[in-house]
């Protein structure tokens, strides 16, 4: 089928301001939006710039706005979005080039919640035990691929770029609810601060945006409850 794809393009080193370029390409309805971008890049305009790697929704490279919604280009099929596709970079980060945004601050915020197991007890010879029920408490938030779709869909983040954002909080949740972790005190600084979880206004955009189906808003609610009642 023929698809018309409008792409928001911008190269800050050469373009005065962003503009939209329109491409018409032949693809299958079962192709991914990433296939559309590849078709453009490989056969129409080699200068089109985006990140990609795994091409099946597990590496987190190609989160972008597709017809106004944050999605992974490789996990969105043409038949879901129709033959007129508008592709734009995620909102709230500086554009490096076309669909590529600057992720430095995103990863800095991720690091700020100390996203690693904190437990200084000497480990046993075998594994530390954890029941399936204990593990289930944080199963959902282990799925995060750090794509940034949630954070850049969040109005609280658009309003205040200091907000640590849902992605970092999902990863804080992953450790706070891990029975093996003892680092809550060390995380309270970033997680419980003014720019931490309390900026979440439960708008649910993040949950809608997450390509891994993580209940992002619920995870933040869990964290709030933990800070209040534990």
């Amino acid at each position, binding site marked *: 089928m023929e698809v018309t794809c409008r792409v928001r393009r911008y190269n800050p080193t050469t373009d005065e301001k962003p503009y939209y370029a329109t491409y018409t390409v032949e693809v299958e309805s079962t192709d991914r939006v990433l296939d559309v971008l590849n078709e453009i890049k490989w056969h129409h305009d080699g200068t089109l710039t985006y990140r990609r*790697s795994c091409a099946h929704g597990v*590496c987190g490279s190609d989160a972008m706005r597709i017809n106004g919604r944050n999605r992974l280009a490789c996990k969105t099929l043409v038949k879901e979005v129709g033959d007129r596709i508008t592709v734009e970079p995620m909102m709230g980060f500086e554009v490096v080039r076309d669909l590529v945004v600057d992720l430095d601050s995103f990863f800095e915020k991720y690091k700020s919640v100390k996203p690693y197991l904190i437990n200084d007890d000497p480990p046993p010879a075998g594994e530390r035990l954890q029941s399936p029920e204990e593990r289930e408490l944080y*199963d959902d938030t282990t799925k995060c691929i750090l794509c940034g779709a949630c954070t850049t869909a969040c109005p609280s983040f658009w309003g205040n770029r200091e907000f640590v954002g849902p992605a970092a909080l999902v990863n804080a949740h992953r450790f706070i609810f891990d029975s093996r972790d003892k680092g809550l005190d060390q995380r309270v600084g970033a997680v419980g601060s003014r720019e931490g979880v309390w900026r979440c206004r439960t708008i649910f955009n993040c949950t809608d945006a997450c390509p891994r189906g993580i209940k992002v808003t619920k995870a933040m609610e869990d964290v709030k409850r933990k800070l209040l009642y534990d």
Partner: protein
Amino acid sequence: MYHKYDVVVVGGGGAGLMAALQLARVPGIRTAVVSKLYPSRSHTGAAQGGIGAALGNHEEDHWEWHMFDTVKGGDYLTDQDAAEIMCHNAVETVYELEHLGLPFSRTPQGKIDQRRFGGHTRNFGEGPVRRSCFAADRTGHMILQTLYQQCIKHEVEFFSEFQVLDLILNDGVCCGVVALNVRDGELHTFHAKAVMLATGGYGRAWKITSNALASTGDGVAIAYRQGIPLEDMEMYQFHPTGEYKLGILISEACRGEGGMLLNDKGKRFMERYAPTLLDLAPRDMISRCIYQEIKEGRGINGQDYVHLDLRHLGREVIESKLPDQADFIRVYLGIDPVTELVPTQPTAHYAMGGIPTDLDGRVTVDERNTPLPGLYAAGECACVSVHGANRLGTNSLVDIVVFGRRAGKDMAEFVAHNELVPLPPKPDAYASAQVKELLGRTEGESVADIRTELQAEMMDKVSVIRSEETLCHAQAKVQELKERYSRAAIQDRQSWFNTELTEALELGYLLDISETVIAGALARKESRGGHYREDYPDRDDKRFLRHTLIYNRGEGIQVAYKPVKITRFEPMERKY
């Protein structure tokens, strides 16, 4: 720009991060991880099914059994000293990963859960054993995340979206790498006492593949261009169950949980070929059996695919143990595995061959295993060789963590006892000329077309079944494509985040790699593991129980051989 470190690790997948973590724990050693992707985007994150270790959490198991399976699975081309280390160390390494925070799935007793996987058996082949330790069906994702998190904790320095273009050698010693900062196009020289290549696989040489777009074999090709021989390149694994036409992997975990392969008659055809292990026979065998079924007209509707049946597992098992698999099948094939049959075909999956190393990850440069001082490699880009002619499922994740760790520890020793070797004059000359040429050429054929032709040729002529005829055809084709590539042009002339440039460089690597795969396959006139020659259908231990080494000698390719290390298990006929 110039940087000085003790160690530079190229690649932020499981192998690179495991090494970096060992180094980060030693005070005073400065390490940089240079990676063309953000580490968390590495293809280790795509690994699904599990990591093999004889923990025996469900039933009796021993690392010796694991070793036997690994050697037999590799059709006896496995170096047994390496397999012994891997299978023995697997146990403590899996516990170490758990201690680092890896969220393994758990047994009711709270231990690490384990499932069956192809080729893994109890008591030297008696029947399947539960050896694959898993975190749902995202084990690789959890390994990658856990190691990345620990590297953050230990303040490892990362240079992300830096694409390495060359190794720097001075008088036979490795002393750094040259990398392109993709963001602004600047070349950086990393001067170091030790360099480790951990750049992963090269499935993108084939049309149908489970590998990421970034899996283009950069490190392997870069080493080859520097005169380092490549080992057993003809040994490339086709995984039996890729999504039809897409190649996206459907994990063996599906069959580990009880899934079955069916032909057009609805018959479980593996009963005929592997009566003991059935659908859990090793991958090379199953892929060949699928080709056989298709050849004999029993592909679905006479076409080139078969069905994977998961329906009898029931919704609950599928949703709880294979959630990502179900998701991939639903999203990309538009099929519900709970009620429908899944169309699958063999997909280019894993490189058993690669850069030769010794047991500590030191790169070796000849038939006598002489190490090249300062250069290390581990993970899919390396060949220790633990996988021989065919890797068992779950053994790559073991390989990357066990040998990533060993390389890390050895580098820590090495840098403590060695001085920094000075850089040669103009260390970035080759890289800089390559980039200038591609950015400067205004007219020429498109890189994408050459890549498409390469991938089609490799799929058609150099995949599951090969012969003198198909290989010679492919050899001539690759020569032609290389020639065309030398005149190809890109449209993007910017230095700023130029991904057309990086893709063009990657195609150069794929072409070199394809050439070595074909050369190895032509020279190996026998069938063994993943390498099947129609014209030489039997294994020939007399002539070919040895490793192929392919050298790049400027004007041409030279093939040499080195012996296989056999310690505990004498080669036997391989039946399942």
